[in-house]
């Protein structure tokens, strides 16, 4: 139990670090760490197969893919964000407070969620959305999408069961393909626009 709590706490800490980090390489490392933490959590909750798959895809595969993309396009190490880092961290903190408040309001059967899992999941989800909205570089938006998905996985972890492993694995595959397609798109963006700052996407509007 204490290991579970420790992992959840590390996830939260990892979220705040992600929100406060400006270097893309550092963010990528944090995303990898988050994948590993998520995998460890699921293994703690006795979902060994899914945990292993997550470790493979979110802990190793996708971060490597993103790193390779980053290196190949030679993007700058950081892109100025839409949302200042301090504001993002503050918003993440407020999101966490909200999630903690929400947990108390929800009519859930006792013991359905391991303690503290729900707020962590919602906090992670919120952190991911903040990254998608608040960051201007295409790579960090993809990372934000990944973090959002991590939050959803965490939220769904009490529902995972041995009989539905196929479903979770399909979800993971979907996610992998999604990030893969986004990676290709980033390659194209970098070669067409000579930047990955999607804040400069302004040619289409009414």
């Amino acid at each position: 139990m204490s290991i579970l709590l420790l992992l959840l706490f590390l996830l939260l800490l990892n979220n705040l670090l992600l929100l406060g980090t400006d270097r893309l390489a550092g963010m990528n490392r944090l995303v990898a760490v988050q994948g590993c933490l998520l995998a460890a959590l699921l293994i703690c909750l006795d979902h060994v197969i899914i945990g292993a798959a997550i470790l493979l895809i979110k802990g190793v595969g996708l971060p490597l893919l993103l790193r390779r993309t980053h290196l190949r396009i030679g993007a700058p190490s950081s892109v100025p964000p839409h949302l200042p880092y301090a504001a993002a961290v503050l918003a993440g903190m407020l999101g966490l407070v909200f999630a903690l408040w929400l947990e108390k309001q929800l009519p859930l059967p006792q013991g359905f969620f391991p303690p503290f899992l729900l707020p962590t999941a919602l906090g992670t989800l919120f952190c991911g959305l903040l990254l998608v909205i608040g960051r201007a570089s295409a790579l960090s938006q993809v990372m934000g999408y990944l973090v959002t998905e991590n939050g959803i996985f965490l939220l769904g972890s009490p529902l995972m069961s041995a009989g539905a492993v196929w479903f979770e694995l399909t979800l993971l595959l979907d996610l992998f393909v999604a990030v893969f397609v986004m990676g290709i798109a980033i390659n194209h963006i970098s070669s067409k626009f000579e930047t990955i700052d999607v804040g400069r996407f302004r040619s289409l509007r009414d």
Partner: protein
Amino acid sequence: MLEALLLLPLLAAALMMLIARATAGRTLLVAAAVAHAVLTAAVLRRIAEGNPPSAFGGLLAPDMLGGLFLGVASALFLVTSVYAVGYLKSEEDLGERSHMKTGERFTNAPERRFTACLCIFLSAMTLVTCTRHLGALWVGIEATTLASAPLIYFHRHRESLEATWKYLIICSVGIALALIGNLLLSFAFVAKGLESANEAADQLSLLLRLAADVAPGGPAVPWLKAAFIFFLVGYGTKMGLAPLHNWLPDAHSQAPSLVSALLSGALLNCALLGILRGHQILIAAGLGGFSAQLLLFFGLISLAVAAVFIVGQGHYKRLLAYSSVEHMGILAFGIGLGGVAVHGAMLHVLCHSLTKCMLFLLAGNILSRYHTLSSHDVHGMRWAMPFTTVLWAGGFLAIVGSPPFGLFVSELWIFKGALAQGQWVLGAVYLALLAVIFVGMSVPILHMIQGTRPADLPRATREPLLSVLPPLALGLTVLLLGLYVPQGLRHALSQAARTIGG
């Protein structure tokens, strides 16, 4: 049969990637479309006979609602695949060229990748429409996003890339929210001993059964409401409900016209199906009023937003895209009204898809002739391309809901539904917005048709058959549906409408 329906397009896609010959790939595309359409017809027939097929242990088992959307997707795919043969041929001849606005040099994506993605896209839509497992539905909708993103980036220039990126990120994140809706649905029934909803292949029936026992004011109620909100936001993003529609005009205006036709005609419906599944469960739980109110609200917002952007729109593909936002709004409005309006909405799904597909294909013809997307620069169409012009004018009359066409009937039914519910004010607002949109659309479209032919444009030559026959077929169908709805279809529509409160 359903296995073949799902896997056949995938097989075709794999073959296309292997075969380098362009003509072989195009033949394969049409062959896959025809085979899919034939199989779909067989499936629909079995559903109508009350003997629906089932595959993968019940994972694929379409009901009439899904079957209707499947039929639309398959029919549109068949038509566009025929159009695609001519389109891809002419694109191949063009080679590298300059962007008409920015002057940037660009090429096309490899053709076989394009056709393969089209087939994967079809397969994903088949999964969405056939499955009764909400998780699989989610996977299918995400797969449609991933398969259609490369389609939007067929013309490899900056604007289409920008549209593709917006589409990918906004829709992926939006759909991720819909997955939360799935989880919340399961949470609602945890207290009733539901261990894992994902294990049941026929998840929808299980959830409907559980929902039927939900006591009003019970602990499950807030969960179900929250789940529907997440469905609405998540799938609503993909469906283009305002204010979540931002990606839609960009993607539709930058994609090749036949892709826009499929996106507008088939894909938006698939996302609507996701919302309808949630609506279905809420109705079973006795919370239909809640979801209907939300649908009504977002429907009207979409109509209003579309009206604002349609008036003065100088970009004819964006015009059509906003018209899709409008019609998605009408659908949500009709379904939210309930009763006879739902029947109207089902007919509207069919007619809107056919008409919008036709209009986008015609827009492709206009673009290839005039090389501009601005409706101010297109004039004298009736001299330059008479056959397309006739269809374009007919399609315009159809899409704004003029009498002889099917959309008139369906929009009238929805209005009738509003009056039957005693919603006079809503009905009046609906009519007023439709009138504004009618005027807003007629200005640019009439401007395009009338006037003199631009001096630098050669006189009318014979238009390629493959570019006008598919829209013609669609237009005739819509006209037919306006004059006469066959008994079988009428029956099918009401069967579909019954599942969602009609």
